[in-house]
């Protein structure tokens, strides 16, 4: 069907050096899940409902992927910096704006990553950028051009613009492998996606962070995460792909429930 990454996908295909990654596994000792709302607040949609809900989303073209594609907005491109961890959250915030039918605003994750890492090309995790998004917001590309590493854009006007694009509503830290088994994490992400809440997701196997937009049924009893990557439209299926099997279980994940309106 589409571009699928599973346990049989050669590493050469997912670790192409032409595409920058940059995930640093989150250290829960210093960044515990309690910094966000607890995952126990999410009432899980049982797996018995998944097929019907996925079919309904397909029939009504109501998933976040459908909504994103209808906007015609190209996927983001982080290259050559390893700022995936800021792009996954940025894409989730853009998707949340699209879900609210707010004007499409292309955000500049490079600005956030530059600010956090003091303009060094260093890795991180989605929770790091999401915390920044809650406190300061993401500027648009009109305030900080895409992929710019220039300090000239680090100015008050830029951050005033960023304040228009914050994560504002409660957001949920879905990780919690310390407290829950990982399968539950997948089910939490699945629930969020079935409700059109975008999820930045980190994968240690990939050394990469992307944004999950949709739960898909790969085959009977097997589900995958439809993700939007930050490697431009030339990768995957116009920038989208499906992760399945063990490749789809995130090591760290967040849910963006609402952004500045």
């Amino acid at each position, binding site marked *: 069907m589409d571009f699928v990454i599973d346990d049989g996908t050669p590493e050469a295909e997912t670790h192409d050096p032409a595409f920058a990654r940059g995930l640093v596994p989150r250290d829960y000792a210093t960044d515990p899940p309690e910094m966000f709302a607890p995952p126990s607040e999410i009432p899980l949609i049982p797996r018995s*409902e998944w097929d019907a809900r996925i079919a309904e989303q397909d029939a009504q073209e*109501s998933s976040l992927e459908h909504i994103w594609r209808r906007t015609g907005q190209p996927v983001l491109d982080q290259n050559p910096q390893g700022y995936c961890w800021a792009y996954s959250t940025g894409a989730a915030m853009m998707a949340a704006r699209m879900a609210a039918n707010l004007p499409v605003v292309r955000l500049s994750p490079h600005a956030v990553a530059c600010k956090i890492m003091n303009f060094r090309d260093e890795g991180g995790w989605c929770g790091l950028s999401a915390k920044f998004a809650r406190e300061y917001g993401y500027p648009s590309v009109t305030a900080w051009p895409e992929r710019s590493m220039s300090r000239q854009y680090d100015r008050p006007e830029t951050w005033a613009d960023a304040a228009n694009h914050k994560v504002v509503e409660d957001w949920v830290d879905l990780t919690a492998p310390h407290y829950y088994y990982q399968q539950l994490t997948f089910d939490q992400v699945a629930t969020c996606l079935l*409700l059109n809440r975008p999820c930045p997701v980190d994968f240690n196997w990939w050394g990469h962070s992307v944004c999950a937009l949709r739960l898909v049924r790969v085959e009977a009893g097997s589900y995958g995460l439809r993700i939007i990557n930050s490697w431009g439209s030339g990768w995957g299926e116009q920038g989208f792909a499906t992760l399945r099997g063990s490749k789809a279980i995130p090591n760290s994940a967040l849910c963006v429930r609402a952004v*500045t309106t």
Partner: protein
Amino acid sequence: MKLLGGACLGLLLFASVAASTDPATPHQPVQPVTPPAPPPGETLPDWPATPVVPQPMPPQPAPKAVANLAAEELYVVQSDDDVQLLASPPGVVVVTKEQGPLKIRGLFVGNKIVSTRTYGKKHVFIVERVKPGDVELLLVPAGKVERRTVGDGDGPIPPPKPKPDDPPAPKPPEPATSFRVIFVYESGDTLTAAQHSVIFGKSVSDYLDATATKEAGRPGWRRFDKDAAAEKEQPTMRALWSAVRPQLTATPCLVVEVNGRAEIVPLPATPAEALATLKTYSGGK
């Protein structure tokens, strides 16, 4: 002449801010206006006015302005009071009086699809056209007279001749020059699959993209968490949200604004029902 049928829903008035498009222009405070209650001791039938009750309400037919009653359509009036519905001249429509509560399945006036509706009042009148021509409906509740005229679609309908003891004739609905919609939900709640389809489905969003009033180039419809601030919104959308937000009592629901008047209605059950409901507000566009 238009007919106003079905249940009235919560009304808010938020006019006077729609003309402002300058984000820097401060807004006048929006004052929700609640229609006055009937005088003590006076009980009017469920037509044309009902007490204003904010949502939620059980599913009821949405208020609609009816220009013409086609041969296959039903126009239904209900009341808890002992009233009579008279047609003048006779022979144009047939009025059947039934005892409520009553479920009726059929093609209701103003709708494009067959649907089932429940009428909970004691007295239910079903009006059906049997031959072309205009007809005036007279609802007579305990000494009061309310007048409506049904047209057949052939040419303009003359207004009824006023009588000294008549109440003021209702004004025909104005064309929808302003039409905005907000789907309201709690982002922490689990929507059902059907609710999800109504709020996020392509058919509904395509319709709203085409019909909702644009502001700064963006169609005037949104999907908001019930706690959204909307402080960065366009002026009219911000004013609409600030007017209706304090009135929200349950989610998910639908906010519809037409010509400066906003209503909060229960979320339709399906995308098809949502489209039918929205078309009644947008004037069938």
